[in-house]
């Protein structure tokens, strides 16, 4: 029993545990909208895009690199949305170009100029060392903003996630909802980056939501189940990372993957069938009528 409570005597671990649990919950919560909209790749891309801003701003304004990285992420998210909407380039291609270019820029800047902020490895894979009170306040603020956004725009978010075309003609400003979701997603990635890491954030956006989908057919239940699963993965992953001596983000994602396997084994075909619909994000495109008119 003492072994379990042993890490809690360290202040850095207490902070890490709090941040990891909140991060898991936040990513699980936002992840529901991301996976149901078929935007998992955007989550993956955005975390890489934020890394570019992270590297660039810690060079020029070391104290403000979090704000700079946030603005960079939001700009990338809006650019992806606009490029995908207004040009012949598909969303996947837009994400591939914009976010990987941003990530490559970040790697180049780190290699050339080094860092005055978090270490390169920590930014990529997450670390609980050196979590500042400001980071905790930032994470709490992002949780509050995300919760308020979803609470105030719940119906519009649900409608535009399920059926954007019909939502559009039913009085929902789908473009504004999408932009709001992109901003919230960018903020969530940024706020959780330090603990989970750039390369692993996307996994925590997807895994809790997919596991929750396998467990329920109700949107409301999926939302809170995904939040709880994300929080549990954060909590357990952080604990295990202490004992295993591996980066926190790595262990959090491994716990999430283990939960996925266990739930898949329990729910079997039913869970698989439920989660199969998660890639049906092309559903709003009209299906062509048969060639014969009669």
């Amino acid at each position: 029993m003492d072994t379990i409570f042993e890490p809690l005597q360290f202040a850095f671990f207490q902070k890490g545990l709090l941040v990891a649990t909140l991060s898991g919950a936040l990513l699980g919560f936002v992840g529901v909208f991301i996976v149901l909209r078929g935007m998992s790749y955007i989550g993956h891309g955005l975390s890489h895009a934020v890394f570019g801003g992270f590297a660039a701003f810690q060079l020029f304004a070391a104290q403000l690199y979090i704000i700079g990285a946030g603005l960079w992420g939001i700009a990338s998210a809006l650019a992806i949305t606009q490029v995908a909407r207004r040009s012949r380039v598909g969303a996947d291609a837009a994400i591939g170009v914009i976010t990987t270019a941003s990530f490559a820029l970040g790697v180049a800047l780190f290699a050339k100029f080094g860092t005055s902020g978090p270490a390169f490895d920590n930014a990529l894979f997450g670390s609980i060392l050196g979590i500042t009170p400001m980071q905790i306040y930032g994470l709490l603020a992002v949780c509050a903003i995300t919760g308020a956004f979803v609470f105030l725009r719940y119906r519009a978010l649900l409608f535009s996630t399920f059926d954007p075309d019909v939502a559009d003609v039913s009085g929902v400003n789908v473009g504004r909802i999408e932009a709001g979701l992109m901003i919230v997603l960018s903020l969530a990635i940024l706020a959780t980056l330090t603990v989970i890491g750039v390369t692993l954030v996307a996994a925590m956006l997807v895994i809790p939501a997919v596991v929750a989908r396998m467990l329920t057919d109700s949107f409301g239940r999926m939302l809170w189940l995904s939040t709880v699963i994300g929080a549990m993965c954060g909590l357990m992953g952080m604990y295990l990372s202490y004992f295993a001596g591996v980066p926190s983000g790595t262990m959090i994602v491994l716990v999430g993957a283990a939960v996925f396997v266990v739930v898949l084994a329990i729910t079997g075909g039913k869970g698989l069938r439920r989660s199969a619909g998660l890639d049906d994000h092309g559903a709003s495109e009209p299906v062509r009528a048969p060639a014969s008119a009669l």
Partner: protein
Amino acid sequence: MTGTGIGPVLIDMLAVDAGYRGSHVLHNVDFEVREDQFTGIVGPSGAGKTTLLRVLLGTLDPMGGAMSRSKDLRISYVPQLETVNWDFPVTVFECVLMSRTSGRIAPWPTKAERAEVQAVLERLGISDLASRHIRELSGGQQQRMFLARALLRKPNLLLLDEPTSGVDVSTRHDVLHLLGDLHEDGMAIVLTTHDLNGMAAHLPHLVCVNGRIIASGTPHDVITPHVLEQTYGARMEVLEHLGMPVVVDAAPEMADRRKSA
């Protein structure tokens, strides 16, 4: 049932061109929707039926021409069943309530909203399915659910994209009868379809489209070999059955015989 409609105009399109990314799909379209109208837009795939529907909905801006909308216009839209993600985690009740997006901030419904949803589900005969997941419904029940969602907005114009596509004959009759009842209650209805025979028996007004308006009128006016050949680019025979025009594919030899005659 009334035909082309004599009530106030809800939408008026004059010489409208429409399309996507600079290329025209519809040319010089004159089309109006009146308050007591019940119209089917028919035509082959790629003819511009859905484009016309999108212009009416206001989700696609015309590339040319003039368009006006009544200030009283309240549109509801029913999408094609094939375009819906039926694995999305919502119940019938949640799906119908989606269309109530204004007037309340909190996610959960008020008592009055619950009663409204229940009333509209009862009107469409699916009140006992409210707590079911949407995947568990039959084709006809799915169509009724979307009609319920559309009706909750209290529209005066209902637009439907291929409402009889992918459903069996009995469900098709069911859906069209239901739309007839809604029209009798005073709602304007415009739907697209590629199913000519099904529409001739139920709709008082048809519009044939293929890049432009080919013909417009009652089924008897529109379902003629000449109009169908212009619309579909193939010869078709029109027979009369119980006073309704019925379309059959013309065998090639019959078409040849007609030509030589």
